[in-house]
């Protein structure tokens, strides 16, 4: 069963946010691996082969832009959901140009983030955690 849970790489330098995302995603039926800077994130992409990357932009060592650029240069890169407190149109455009699948602005609604992750999962029709099976009941439907 564990092999069937999609693996999310959470890239975030803010410890509480990292912890929080892990808690929420694991409760929602994802497996997670973590990175607190861009360089680690690239290493974990190679080692752990995540199904999707949840990426903050303001990161030490190598920032989110650098990670996006590096990932785009790879042949088999996972889709990326950017999750940042930067909310300018310029940042959204730049992220899209660098191949980000979705852009979620902090602060975010948990339901929206989960939807965004599920939407970009490869072969998402087969994604095991559909709305009904989500432990937290926050699958596809928007939270009240």
């Amino acid at each position, binding site marked *: 069963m564990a092999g069937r849970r999609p693996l999310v790489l959470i890239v975030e*330098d803010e410890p*509480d946010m990292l*912890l929080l995302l892990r808690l929420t995603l694991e*409760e929602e039926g994802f497996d997670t691996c973590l990175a607190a800077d861009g360089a680690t994130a690239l290493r974990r992409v190679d080692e752990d082969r995540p199904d999707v990357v949840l990426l903050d932009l303001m990161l030490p060592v190598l*920032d989110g832009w650098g990670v996006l650029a590096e990932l785009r240069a790879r042949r088999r890169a996972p889709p990326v959901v950017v999750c940042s407190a930067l909310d300018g149109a310029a940042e959204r455009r730049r992220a899209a140009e660098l191949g980000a699948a979705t852009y979620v602005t902090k*602060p975010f609604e948990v339901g929206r983030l989960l939807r965004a992750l599920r939407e970009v999962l490869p072969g998402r029709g087969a994604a095991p955690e559909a709305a009904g099976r989500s432990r*937290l*009941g926050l699958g596809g439907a928007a*939270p009240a």
Partner: protein
Amino acid sequence: MAASDEVPEQIRREARVVGLRRFHTPSLEAVERRRMQLWLLTAVLIVALSTGAALLSLWPARTWGFARPGTLRLGIVALSVAFCVYAIDKELHLRRLARLLIDERVLTAALTNRLRELTLLLEAGKAVNAVLDLDAVLDIILRSALELLGGRSGSVMLVEGEELVAACVSGNDPARGERVRLGEGIAGRVALSREPALIDGTVAGDGAVSPDRPVSALSAPLVHRDQVLGVLNVNAERGRRFTEYDLRALATFAEQAAAAVANARLYEAERRHVAELLELDRLKSEFVALVSHELRTPLASILAAGETAMMPAVRDEAMEELLDIIVRQSHRLAEMVEELLLAARLEAGEREVELQEVDAVALARVAAHDLGPSGRTVEVEGPEEAIVAADPDLLRRVLDNLLDNAHKYGAPPVRIAIEPGEEEVVVSILDAGPGVPAGERERVFERFARLRDTRRQPGLGLGLPIVRGLVEACRGRVWVEDAPGGGAAFRVALRAARVPAERA
């Protein structure tokens, strides 16, 4: 002007009398020609009359009716006399006309000269006022002055403190950048007395006239609104002597030049000011972006944790962690809001504090002790007590901020060293990190300094600006230097409240 209008009228009248009607304004040459004609006519007539008289005397005495020789002779004499009177009268008028014409020429030449001067002044004024760059203005002033007076070389010197500095030089006397104390040398004395000076080599102002120095020179002060801005110096071409008249012309020009210099300076100051304001505006916009980003980060955690906690099936352990996150991030948010408000209040200069006697050593020990649970260690060195005039809350905040700073950007060991002095107590926070580069030491206390960095450090970058504001509110000073043995030393100097008690 009335007098000069009269002259042509007089000339016209004289010209009419001597028969120079065709010439609206007769020339001297025309007058001379007329004179020649007059004297030629006179000569011809005299010759004719004399010949007539001679022939008459040779003629045998005969009676020609009424024309007896005696009567004819008398007639010839009368004609000669009448013509002589006519010729002399015309000659007098011609002379008068010639004199008037010469006067007119002199006057015209003088007027032309004056007009040229005024035109040059006007042009220089226009050129000077059309340009607002100070160097260009000085250049135009000097070139115009040299042209106006036929100078060989010159300089514009500007007052800087107690000195005159050669800001614009033509020729090589003096060299650009040369400095003269006010009151010394010719220029220095002109600047002090505000009186233009005419320098003649024979009565040299400073007594020293070297062969390569000009024999004749002018120096006029640049005075604008009762303030001496500088001195304009012009040296004569070789073989030329300046006169009082030249001095007056230069002084008049200097008035205009001074106004232009003042305008250019004003404009430069204004331009600098505008550039500063634009930069400040840009920094403020960036600061707003930074603040919103920094405030959103904990807010995002709080909201997401809250939402997750409200989901129906959260495990108890997860719930506990979520609540922890909410509390921690709320504290962080509150701290940041507090920091922003404090910085704003300090900037507005609102903080008026009552200074009390505070033991800096005791306060430092408490601050070090309170850091214990976070795992950060701080060593306190100093006497048993050091009483300063400060506000204990503010001083504590200063220490906390500097200690936090030392741990964040410096490296352990972090120490507080307190050195009491007669007037001041210096509290130093020392670390063993990389230190602050010499060029950055003032800037780190400025707001927005963080913005010029990589932006990777979390936080608002208000820590040190707040420290400076708080220390100044306690009438103290704060600065950073290299710690002995490497690292940064942030030093806070506070007024000593009383001389430390002598202890055995």
